[in-house]
């Protein structure tokens, strides 16, 4: 049973991965990735990582992919040919990939660790449960946990800086109304949404002030 599930899930994951790389339309790439992620979540479940699997579905397939879709929609998923003019090497890219794959396989298969050939450590109740993960996060991995949350804050700030609208940078015609900032999408998580918002407000105010002073960027 587990073998079949594994087979199916990994097939899905690989297919999704190949889809991401091989499909020309970015939008379909995103969809392929969603498929990939879901398959991966299944694999996680097989590995008894319930919480990770859940987070995978919620955060990735849910939040992050939505962001992707937004941006793809905004940019307009132009079809860029794979390869095409440019550096002449891409023909060897698959070789690189194969070499990498072979090396990693050799590393794992050639390892003297017996456990790799086994099915894993004996299952202990509660392994991979939210409770266990939560405990780890609050004890041994307290600092990473805090730092990770902080990282999210900073990423939000960074995204705001980058994606904020500025006068003179973009074509006036295309300046449709956009979300105040892509960082808004993260508002619930780190809980600093006001920050992002006010930054956006500030940007508008500054833009207005700049206009009044007529300095003309």
């Amino acid at each position: 049973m587990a073998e079949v599930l594994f087979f199916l899930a990994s097939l899905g994951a690989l297919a999704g991965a190949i889809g991401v790389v091989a499909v020309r339309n970015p939008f379909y790439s995103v969809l392929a990735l969603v498929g990939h992620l879901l398959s991966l979540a299944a694999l996680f479940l097989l590995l008894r990582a319930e919480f990770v699997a859940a987070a995978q579905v919620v955060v990735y397939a849910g939040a992050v992919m939505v962001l992707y879709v937004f941006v793809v929609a905004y940019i307009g998923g132009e079809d860029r040919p794979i390869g095409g003019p440019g550096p002449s090497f891409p023909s060897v890219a698959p070789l690189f990939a194969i070499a990498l794959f072979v090396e990693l396989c050799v590393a794992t298969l050639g390892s003297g660790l017996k456990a790799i050939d086994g099915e894993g450590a004996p299952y202990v109740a509660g392994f991979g449960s939210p409770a266990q993960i939560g405990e780890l996060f609050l004890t041994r991995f307290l600092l990473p946990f805090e730092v990770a949350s902080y990282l999210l804050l900073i990423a939000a700030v960074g995204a705001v800086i980058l994606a904020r609208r500025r006068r003179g940078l973009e074509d006036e015609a295309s300046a449709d109304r956009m979300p105040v900032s892509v960082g808004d999408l993260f508002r619930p998580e780190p809980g600093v949404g006001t920050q992002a918002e006010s930054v956006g407000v500030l940007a508008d105010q500054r833009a207005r002030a700049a206009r009044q002073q007529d300095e003309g960027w």
Partner: protein
Amino acid sequence: MTPHAPHIDWAGLSPVIALTVGPIVVLMAGLFRREVVRRAVVPVLTVVALGAALGLSVWQWGEDKSIVSGALAVDDLSMFLNVLFCVGAIAAVVLALRDSSAEEAGHGEWHALLLSAVLGMVVLAGAENLVVVFLGLELLSIPLYVMCATNLRRSTSLESGLKYLIVGSVGSATLLYGLALIYGAAGTTSFGGIAAALGRDGGLASDPLTLTGIGLLVAGLCFKVSAAPFHQWTPDVYEGAPTPVTAFMAVATKAAAFGAFVRLFDVALVDAATNWAPLLAVVATVSIVVGNVGALGQSSLKRLMAWSSVAQAGYMLAGVVVADEAGVRALVFYLAVYLVMNIAAFAVIVARERETAFGDDIRSVAGLGASRPELAWPMTLAMLSLAGMPATAGFVGKFTLISASVQNDYAWLGIAIVIGSMISLAYYLRVIAAMWLTDAPAVAPRPVMAGGSPELDSTGDDSSAGDSSAREPGPPANGSGEGEPGAASLGRQPEVVAVAVAFGAATLVLGIVPSPLLHAARDAGRALGLL
């Protein structure tokens, strides 16, 4: 089973706390509408936060402990590096005072990012856990990706940001995979556990799984320290990023990555040293050659410094390779020296970028010796020091590195350092030659001299310097009429000159009286408990 909250050593954590609180405060301050708050208070607060972290790190000097359940090490090595990050960041803040990138991004945000990057470095340098390593690395990288791109008006800035992001993420992913393999081999993420596992089971240190993991780690970390052949992002990003960011990135990222390097390799993976040391020595040599060779004939000073940093990374790798106390001491000392001389050089580049129409082209410093010796001297000292000339800090730094290499039977690596230095002379001397041996180019520099001597201009205009200069946007020069007084007052840039002079002087002083710093470096070297 009731989980017990881990004991937290607040004193040890204090630098981290300072750097966590700092960005928040700065971010808040950046929301104030008054110009003066954003322009003056934000940098001051940033400097205060950095100063606090610096002071707290110094306060924690001499401690040797592991805090927050073994996540972070508080020892002389991490404290030493903390000081370096803070000093580099303070210099970057000062250099960025009039920079358009901070303006673009918003002062609060820009400085918050800077502080976050410093936090990431502190975390990375002290990390004693694979998870923390990865997080620290990302925490320092992500703000930098953004900061590289903050000069949004220049397409090169965006380009550099994107390149850094993508190539950097590939590097991170590689590193991550390596971490995963190490974890898989050792079964734990803590350094102590890994070292114990490797020490316990002799076969594990030469197991393909471990070694492939190490290989991926080498690639990831070498990417961060920009050692060849993982260096290619460096020139492009250095050139494209706003110069104060480049300065910070050059000195601090390298220090942080090397901090992680020594801790990871010389503590956790030291039992596999016989396997990884020769490879690192080869990477060091390749870096030395590639970096120095690539720097030849560059006309962009930032690009030149980037290539030079590739070479310098190669020199410093020697300190990792030898994996003993002397090696760490040499590495740490060199990191400090590298910081001092690079900041001096970048300060001059910043100053000239704003003063001339040549940007960071080497022509911007032509004839500097005659026109602005206060800038020419720091640059000269920095170049001499980078080249390893005596009486500068770089000489002592190279001396210690070669000494450490020879001591551990890597004499050939010492020779490689020496040969690299020979090649490097060609481009360092070119900069010096441009400053002292050639005349300023015929094209008039951007500050307008029409009003007479530059001295007159600046003395009459000092009070309004802050305001008028701030409105002066980045290159290219836009207004012929309105920009003039601002440009003239920019001609002096006292804070940039001060940084240049201070760090130039430090280059000289550290070359003549290196003992205190060497003492500190020795303590830092002992922190790892190596031979």
